[in-house]
């Protein structure tokens, strides 16, 4: 059976247990209709021109895993940023793992999505925010909504600052021959609230895993949200991520995406401005090899005046790996004094590596500053010779240059331990020991 048919036919059973009068039931049923109508995206669609998910649809995925054995923290410790105190919510094969988690309910809520959706106390928040930012035209988002079972709910009320970063980890153990995961996160930061989130998806086996993740972030007036996505999964795992961000007046939201692993990764990152003096930061480092593929699709919708957005994506592509950067900036007529900056720089290490980069600016206001630049190049021979003439071997010299190339994206990472971890991952990915990476 085709995956789509399988999903469509299993929906009623999935939805069976739900209260048919709940708003959730209506949303999910509507989403299912959307998905059934549109199906999976194909390369015929402009937004999917360079990314084919056809091979990802082949395995006979388990949709409702029974949940395998639990994991001991020591087994998976290295996938956490474990040298900091943090709130943790971990899932194993789609199911919440209490042993790996440390939630919070004092002053703010860091808990399970299922709890939030079902408990009457959260009803108001969920009804106000849940599924309200998503693009209902996106069939994969609709699919996630339709099959929504679990995920993370973070609610930081007005004026509260979450004292430690929140880590969200999804493990898959290989208990099923193939697994489809559809996690969902809802982050609501009230006026003046602050929270930092680190998200990671990690397969522990070589069984195929496809994760179709959706995250909604709401930043209230003057709220600050920093979100870090660490993508360093096994080559048997693929990820499609849709993240939607809604920002009120004077809020700051940053999303850093570090894409080093996985077979295919698609990041759809969408920012919507709902007030003036908003700041949005979108940064990414991508380092690929083999036949890996990463596609970054960003959208910043400047709908209000006096807002800023900063995009900076760096990519290093080796072997036959392929990358896509499609950065869309819309400046609506009302959005005067917009300052939108976009940069995408790429290095191709091999003849067979490719990258497609496309800035898309749609500007309807007349008093704005918008800049974009993209480059695709090789490592500079003169610079390499310079480093080698100082005794640094070719391999290390190349790594040093690539490190330097990617490095400036790390400067805006606000959690030093995350910065250090990413430094290490970059060093490992580039295959060198880099003493300089941890300095300064």
């Amino acid at each position: 059976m085709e995956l789509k048919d399988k999903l469509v036919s299993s929906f009623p059973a999935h939805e069976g247990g739900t209260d048919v009068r709940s708003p959730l039931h209506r949303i999910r049923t509507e989403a299912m209709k959307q998905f059934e109508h549109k199906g999976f995206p194909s390369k015929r669609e402009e937004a999917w021109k360079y990314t084919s998910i056809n091979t990802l649809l082949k395995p006979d995925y388990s949709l409702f895993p029974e949940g395998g054995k639990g994991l001991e923290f020591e087994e998976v410790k290295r996938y956490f940023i474990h040298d900091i105190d943090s709130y943790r919510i971990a899932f194993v094969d789609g199911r919440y793992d209490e042993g790996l988690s440390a939630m919070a309910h004092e002053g703010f809520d860091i808990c399970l999505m299922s709890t939030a959706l079902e408990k009457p106390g959260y009803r108001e928040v969920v009804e106000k925010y849940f599924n309200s930012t998503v693009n209902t035209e996106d069939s994969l988002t609709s699919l996630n909504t339709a099959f929504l079972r679990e995920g993370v709910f973070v609610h930081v009320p007005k004026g509260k600052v979450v004292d430690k970063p929140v880590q969200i980890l999804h493990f898959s153990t290989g208990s099923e021959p193939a697994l489809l995961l559809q996690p969902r996160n809802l982050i609501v930061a009230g006026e003046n609230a602050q929270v930092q989130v680190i998200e990671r998806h990690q397969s522990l086996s070589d069984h195929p895993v496809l994760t179709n993740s959706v995250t909604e972030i709401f930043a209230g007036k003057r709220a600050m949200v920093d979100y870090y996505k660490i993508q360093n999964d096994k080559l048997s795992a693929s990820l499609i991520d849709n993240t939607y961000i809604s920002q009120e007046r004077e809020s700051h939201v940053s999303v850093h995406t570090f894409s080093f692993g996985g077979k295919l990764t698609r990041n759809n990152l969408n920012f919507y401005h709902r007030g003036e003096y908003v700041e949005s930061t979108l940064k990414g480092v991508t380092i690929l090899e083999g036949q890996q593929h990463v596609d970054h699709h960003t959208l910043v919708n400047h709908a209000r005046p006096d807002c800023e957005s900063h995009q900076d994506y760096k990519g290093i592509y080796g072997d036959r790996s392929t990358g896509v950067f499609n950065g869309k900036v819309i400046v609506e007529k009302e959005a005067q004094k917009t300052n939108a900056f976009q940069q995408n720089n790429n290095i191709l290490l091999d003849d067979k590596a490719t990258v497609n980069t496309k800035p898309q600016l749609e500007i309807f206001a007349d008093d704005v500053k918008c800049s974009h630049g993209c480059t695709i190049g090789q490592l500079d021979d003169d610079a390499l010779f310079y480093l080698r003439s100082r005794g640094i071997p070719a391999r290390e010299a190349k790594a040093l240059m690539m490190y330097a190339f990617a490095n400036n994206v790390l400067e805006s990472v606000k959690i030093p331990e995350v910065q250090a971890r990413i430094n290490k991952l970059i060093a490992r990915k580039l295959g060198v020991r880099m003493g300089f990476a941890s300095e300064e």
Partner: protein
Amino acid sequence: MLKINNLHAGVEGKEILKGIDLEVNAGEVHAIMGPNGSGKSTLSSVIAGKEEFEVTGGEILFEGEDVDELAAEERAHKGIFLSFQYPVEIPGVSVTNFMRTAINETRKARGLEEMPASEMLKKIREKSELLEIDRNFLSRSLNEGFSGGEKKRNEIFQMAMLEPRLAILDETDSGLDIDALRIVSNGVNKLRSKDNAVIVITHYQRLLDYIVPDFVHVLLDGKIVKSGTAELAHVLEEKGYDWIKQEKVSN
């Protein structure tokens, strides 16, 4: 230390060096002068091992060993240093970290342990004082946004850190004001010893007032056409290169 025999080299099939002979011994300072396009920078790049240049004839012996098959880094490990005419900017890598990497890679290649951090810091402090380099400068990205003078001073600082046996200074005087010229020359002179050698490549005699050479060679159209003592540089300053060209023709 360095012995170059009938060296022919070029780039993309075009011959630039057309039979160079040069012998440099420990403790000596040689100046190579010549007009633009005579092959001065090519000679320094070829000795340092830049791959885009192809050696088509002759040999370069360093400490008796033919360096033709050696990569740039291997030549550096043996003690050859090139001060660049145009040092490259490397954003994101600080001067300090760059030097630490270069020194430890060189030590590794020589079978030595990494330099202890305290020793490294001491050395950095000592050498930066010699070149009158500010501490803040050392944590800046390598050459990024440096003025011409800062770049050249940084080159000599690197030379001081790496302590090469043979240092080739390619147009180190270009872009230097008189103060920077004094600092740079002073640095080079302090580093001179009976065990190392310096090749100064320059257009102008000016630098040679500060770094006094034992020998001066004139490079013209890919060949050394005249050699002499420091006095030759003064003659060149006064009379230019034309008389040598004529002398060459009449010979």
